[in-house]
């Protein structure tokens, strides 16, 4: 599958933004972190900034971005539409929660309810995004039960890294939050390994014989191209740059997305506060984002669409 830059950016940025929003909502509502105005202001600016930049970026690959508002209408059948609805809905409680936190210094009572509601909205938005991919029966690497949990966990992990960086920067850092980032990173890594194991061992069920209905007559293979130049279907669905580098890219994604942030987090635990710890938490978050970008690219490159069977693929 062709990875549009805008979609890679969207899923990476908004994933982290929603992950951060979930943690701000839950820990803010629980009163575990203080309703300090500057902490809240920066936290919500980063969170809304990541989410909004991601959403805006996702409209860049549209043929008609000016019609994007129409995409919230078909929530009854379309996961993409549901994602749009949930993304817009989440701004409402999250915006109010942010106002209460930053200007009134309050995160209790009804404000706490808003925090929990924004966390729920963010979680559902991540779920809808994952389901856009998981619901496609045409791509077996995506039509896989690991896809949505992995997407949510990666969002949570990158969000936890930013959350930790934020708290460190405002002197609210606690070893607990660094361990929280480590725990979500490890959980996401285990889930990603589960996904990779699943797609590596899955038997691809379809071949050109199924695609053409000619399979019972013998082995089917194309002997002449249907057209002289590649068409949209081949460029979009037949994209496979990076597939041959999959092994290497997996290593880079694991290193940048998990190993480096994990080591930096352990260093932060060892340092126990201070400027150096603060810098390391930001580096951990940035490295995590880089790893996720590679992981997203690979997610597209490893996806084999069944339509490629008409164009010479052996299986899909």
């Amino acid at each position, binding site marked *: 599958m062709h990875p549009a830059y805008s979609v890679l950016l969207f899923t990476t940025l908004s994933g982290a933004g929603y992950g951060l929003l979930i943690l701000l909502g839950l820990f803010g509502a629980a009163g575990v972190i203080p309703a300090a105005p500057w902490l809240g202001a920066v936290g919500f600016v980063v969170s809304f900034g990541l989410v909004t930049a991601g959403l805006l970026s996702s409209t860049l690959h549209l043929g008609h971005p000016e019609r994007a508002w129409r995409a919230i209408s078909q929530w009854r059948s379309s996961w993409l539409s549901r994602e749009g609805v949930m993304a817009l809905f989440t701004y409402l409680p999250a915006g109010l929660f942010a106002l209460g936190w930053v200007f009134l210094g309050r995160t209790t009572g009804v404000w706490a309810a808003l925090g929990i509601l924004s966390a729920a909205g963010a979680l559902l938005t991540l779920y809808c995004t994952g389901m856009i991919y998981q619901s496609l*029966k045409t791509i077996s690497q995506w039509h896989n039960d690991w896809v949505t949990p992995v997407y949510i966990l990666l969002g949570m992990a990158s969000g936890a890294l930013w959350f930790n960086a934020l708290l460190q920067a405002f002197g609210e850092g606690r070893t607990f939050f660094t361990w929280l980032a480590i725990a979500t990173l490890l959980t996401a890594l285990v889930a990603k390994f589960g996904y990779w194991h699943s797609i590596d061992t899955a038997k691809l069920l379809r071949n050109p014989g199924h695609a053409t209905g000619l399979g019972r007559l013998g082995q089917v293979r194309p002997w002449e191209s249907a057209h002289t130049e590649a068409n949209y279907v081949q460029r979009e669905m037949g994209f496979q740059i990076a597939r041959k580098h999959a092994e290497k890219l997996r290593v880079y994604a694991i290193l940048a997305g998990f190993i480096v942030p994990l080591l930096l987090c352990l260093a932060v635990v060892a340092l126990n506060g201070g400027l150096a710890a603060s810098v390391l938490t930001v580096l951990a978050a940035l490295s995590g984002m880089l790893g996720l970008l590679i992981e997203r690219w690979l997610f597209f490159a490893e996806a084999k669409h069944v*339509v490629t069977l008409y164009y010479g693929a052996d299986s899909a």
Partner: protein
Amino acid sequence: MTSLPENTTGKKLGLVIDLDTCVGCQACAVSCKEWNTTGHAAPLTDNNPYGAGATGVWLNRIHSYEVSPGTAGSGGMTVNFPRSCLHCEEPACVTVCPTGASYKRAEDGIVLVNPDTCIGCKLCSWACPYGAREYDEDHGVMKKCTLCVDRIYNETFEPEDRQPACVRACPTGARHFGDLGDPQSAVSTLVRERGGVDLMPGLGYRPVNKYLPPRERRVGAEDTPAALAPVEATGGAAEGDGIFRWLDRVLTR
């Protein structure tokens, strides 16, 4: 509305494509492009059509496959394979559409795209297993087969012209148009008699269009000669000229 409508009439318009008689001449593809570049899906882009790197939207693509070794004793065979929208009964291309631009008609099951509300997100093309949708880069919307909805109901046309352009153009009669929801229709009868098949039925899209498999080859039948008698070469300028024929034989020795 991209939720699937209840089919109110039981009508399922579609095509039956005979892989036995298709000769791969591309006439259907060309006439499709010609009609639809001014029809419902108009225009179909055609960039740099005469140069290297030509790109454009076609709603019908004709593949050619080799099937080997074939059924016992038949040797291999080549099969020409036209591929276009199958107007599925469970079209995921419709249900994934976030705007309602992609829709299935309740009255006859034709799957269409409204170019005025399509946002060009391309998700429908990801959801289609059959590669039936091609994105129009110039206009930023998705294009697909309309089953020539602007021909089949056109009362200003002669009755024999009220069928899709590809069907009308096919010189071997390999393409048939009709109501596959009516078990008594000519196309339904054809599917029954020839054992018409769905493409990738396991995916559950329930295509309306059917493909008729190639007939059994008559290899080994009693009237098939074991080998043809050799043909004597009679070459070019020498033909009919005694001296050159004689020289040709001499020089050949």
